């Protein structure tokens, strides 16, 4: 009767749940054939992953893989930037002084309550279009050697869209940072007060306490929700299609339209997202286990 007091077992609830699940699947399969007017054709998909290039004489990645790479590239960058911003904001939100706390709070509330599309537009067209040209990336890249250009393109994608990439990256990071800040804050608050006291009683400074005692413990609590946030970030990165970045869902859409094979492309793309997201979840799960070793 008491939760968790018994091992999982096979009971009446299982029978009900299983029956319901089987019935649902059976019903759907039955209706798929009779109701859905659609002829499935998956043959075109593989060609959009890789294609044989006659001129080069070897296989090259095609749109879906290119899109996937772009998605992964911007997600990783955004996670890095967002984690740094989020940590700073999260620490600010637990500060004892009012001003940093207020700034952190205002930032988080603003970002969390505004829908992504207006935010992206606001940021891209009004803020970054003023700032990023000042960096003079365009002309710098024009003069860059092919080797440098190669490195830059590997890191940030096609040279002509670098400004867009940076803007997209920063706005994604800013949105994600708000959520990460909340996670970090919760992680910090979950470290018991006694840890701070023990830290100061062995003579550590505030900074050292943060650095050696609080953050290491907070990070551990924070890994699972951050993993969730990273997955959300990967999925939400499709937003940057609005500013011309050719990421996975945008290219998938283009293929779907060109090919007129809407379901196949979307289902397959969904599967691609699932694969990377789930792999990510598994990786974080292992990380979490490793970090939690000493707590067992």
């Amino acid at each position, binding site marked *: 009767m008491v939760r968790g007091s018994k091992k999982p077992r096979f009971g009446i609830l299982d029978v009900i749940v299983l029956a319901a699940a089987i019935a649902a699947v059976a019903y759907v399969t039955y209706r798929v054939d009779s109701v859905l*007017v659609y002829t499935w054709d998956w043959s075109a998909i593989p060609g959009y992953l890789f*294609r044989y290039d006659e001129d080069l004489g070897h296989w090259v990645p095609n749109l879906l893989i290119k899109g996937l790479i772009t998605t992964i590239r911007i997600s990783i960058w955004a996670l890095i930037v967002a984690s740094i911003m989020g940590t700073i904001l999260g620490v600010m939100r637990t500060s004892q002084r009012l001003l940093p706390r207020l700034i952190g709070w205002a930032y988080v509330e603003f970002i969390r309550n505004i829908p992504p599309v207006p935010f992206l537009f606001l940021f891209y*067209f009004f803020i970054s279009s003023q700032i990023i040209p000042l960096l003079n990336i365009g002309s710098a890249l024009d003069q860059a050697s092919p080797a440098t250009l190669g490195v830059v393109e590997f890191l940030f994608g096609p040279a002509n869209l670098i400004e867009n990439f940076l803007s997209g990256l920063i706005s994604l990071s800013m949105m994600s940072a708000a959520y990460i800040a909340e996670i970090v804050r919760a992680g910090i608050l979950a470290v018991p007060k006694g840890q701070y006291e023990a830290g100061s009683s062995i003579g550590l400074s505030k900074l050292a306490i943060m650095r050696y005692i609080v953050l290491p413990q907070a990070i551990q609590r924070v890994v699972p929700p951050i993993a969730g946030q990273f997955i959300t970030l990967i999925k939400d990165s499709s937003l940057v299609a*609005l500013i*011309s970045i050719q990421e996975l869902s*945008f290219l998938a*859409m283009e293929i779907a339209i060109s*090919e007129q094979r*809407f379901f196949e492309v979307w289902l397959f793309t969904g599967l691609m997202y699932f694969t990377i997201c789930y792999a990510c979840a598994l990786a974080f799960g292992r990380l979490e286990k490793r970090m939690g070793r000493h707590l067992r």
Partner: protein
Amino acid sequence: QSVIEDIQARGKLVVGLSTFVPWAMRDKKGDLIGFEVDVARQLAEDMGVDVEFVPTAFDGIIPALLAKKFDVIITGMVQKPQRNLTVNFSHPYAYLTVGMAANKALAEKDGLETMEDWNSSDVTLTIKRGTAPGETAARLFPKAKVRQFDDDAQALQDVLNGNAHAFLTSEPKPAYYVIDNPDVLYHPFGVGPFDPSASAFAVRKGDPDALNFFNNWIQYRNLDGWLKSAHAKWFQNRDWKDQVE
């Protein structure tokens, strides 16, 4: 300073477009092809510059033009007065007519025969967002419900699934769809296309030089027949189909 001078100075024409069969789409190699793409290539060639395409989601395309991310939008964009208040349009370089493909079973069930029958609040039509058929639907069937999708394929599927009665899009696609799905779809009032509209380049306001240049280029390429033959290549038949599928 006119954008024409920028293009010359840069040696590159930056064109914004979004995917729209057969105006601009991806071939099997992942490259852009389509009527639009041919037009832009020719335009750049005539200007003596390179061309760069920036495919962009339709929602982002106008802001990007206004923010000077593109020089011009060439994507089958239909002129409308309300739009023209925000951007400038060149002279038309292509004309669209609208066709309609309807769900046979649904139309029979609801007893839809004449044009008047179709103008009813029980009727649901689907279109691609931001295209000419939207106007057509509003004008011909003001009482009908209109669902707007991001793409033709979705709008078509909605009709195939029996969620909506008919699908309006620019010819010749409706004809093709009926040929592809003869059991489900039909043309409700004969095959005849109706309601022509014009597509044009979109440029930023306040740049008469650019407008003048594009207008005259279109007229020039109209007179020498190039536009007509390019249009024919993409719209008269589906020979390009095997490039895509």
